[in-house]
C-alpha cells in the first residue's frame, strides 16, 4: 500500500466511524418507534402473546437506553455510542485475527 492509498483508506475508516457515531449517537433518537415488521405481523396474526421477556430485559442497557438516565435523548445516544464502540472493538479484533497476512497463504 503506498502512502496516498493508506491516507485515502484512513479517510474512509475515520469518516465511516464518525458517520456511525453520528447515526447511533444522535440520529437514533429520531428513529421510528413503531413496531418492526415481525412484531407487527405477530400482533396482527396473534402470536405476539407467545413472546417472552428477554433474559436481560432489566439489564443496564436494555432496549437501547441507559438505566437511570432520564433524558431520553442522552440515554439513547449514549447507548448507541456504547453499541458502536463495543461492536467496533470486537469486530476489528476478530477480523484482525481472522485476516490473511500479506504474502502468506496466497
Amino acid at each position, binding site marked *: 500500500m503506498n502512502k496516498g492509498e493508506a491516507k*485515502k*483508506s484512513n*479517510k*474512509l*475508516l475515520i*469518516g*465511516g*466511524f464518525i*458517520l*456511525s*457515531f453520528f*447515526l*447511533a449517537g444522535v*440520529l*437514533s433518537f429520531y*428513529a*421510528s418507534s*413503531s*413496531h*418492526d*415488521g*415481525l412484531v*407487527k*405481523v405477530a400482533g*396482527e*396474526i*396473534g*402470536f405476539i402473546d*407467545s*413472546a*417472552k*421477556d*428477554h*433474559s*436481560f*430485559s432489566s*439489564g443496564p*442497557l*436494555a*432496549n*437501547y437506553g441507559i438505566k437511570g438516565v432520564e433524558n431520553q435523548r442522552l440515554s439513547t445516544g449514549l447507548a*448507541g455510542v*456504547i*453499541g*458502536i464502540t*463495543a*461492536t*467496533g472493538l*470486537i*469486530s*476489528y479484533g*476478530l*477480523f*484482525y485475527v*481472522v*485476516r*490473511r*497476512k*500479506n504474502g502468506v*497463504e496466497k
Partner: protein
Amino acid sequence: MHIPDGFIDIPTSAAFAAIAAAAVAISLKGAKSSLDEKTAPLAGLTATFIFAVQMLNFPVAAGTSGHLLGGALAAVLIGPFAATLAITVVLLMQGLLFADGGLSAMGLNVFNMSVVGVWVGYTIFLLVKKLLPRSKSSIAIAATIGALLSVPAAAASFGLQYALGGTSTFSIGAVFTAMIGTHILIGIGEAIITGFAVAAVMASRSDLVYGFKGETTPLEVRTHNE
C-alpha cells in the same frame, strides 16, 4: 426482524443454533481468504456501521417500521463469509447488551440475517452484476437489487422456522404471506441504504470492495475457466 424468546420452540431453536454455529465456523475459514491487511479494517467498519444503522428504524406503513439488515451490503463490501461474521457480531451485541433478540432465538436470528440475508443478497448481486455492463455504477445497482430481495428472503426464513416450531397454532400460510408482504416494503428501505452506502465506498476506495474485485483483476477471472 429480531425474534424474541418464545415465538419458536426450544428444539427448533436449538437446531438452528447448531446450523448457525456451523455457518460461523465455515465463515471463519472462508473469511481468511477474502480478508487481508488492507480489507480487514473495512470489515470492522462494516459491522460498526450496520450496528448504527440498525438503530434507525424507518416507518414503512401505518404503525410499522423496519431497519436495515445489512446482509447484502456487508457481502458486497467484504465478501459473504466476512459478512456472516460481521452481522453475527452485531446480533450478539444486540442480544447480550441491549436485550434485542432473544437469547434462545440467537441461532434463529443468526440464520435469518447472517446466513439467509447475506447469501441471498450476495447471490442476487452476482446474478445482476453479470447482466449489467462492467462498470463501477453496476456494482451499486446490483447491490441495491440484492438488498431489496434479501429482506423478504429473511422474512420467508422466519416463516419456515414458524412452520417447523411455532409455539402458537396460527395458519402458517398467513404468517408467510404477512411476513413477506411487510418485508417487501422494508426491503425498499434496505435497497436505498445499501445502494448509497456501496456507491459511497466505491467512490472513495473501490479497490477494497470485495464485489468489485473480479473486475479489477481480469487475469484472475480468465484462469477460472470463464
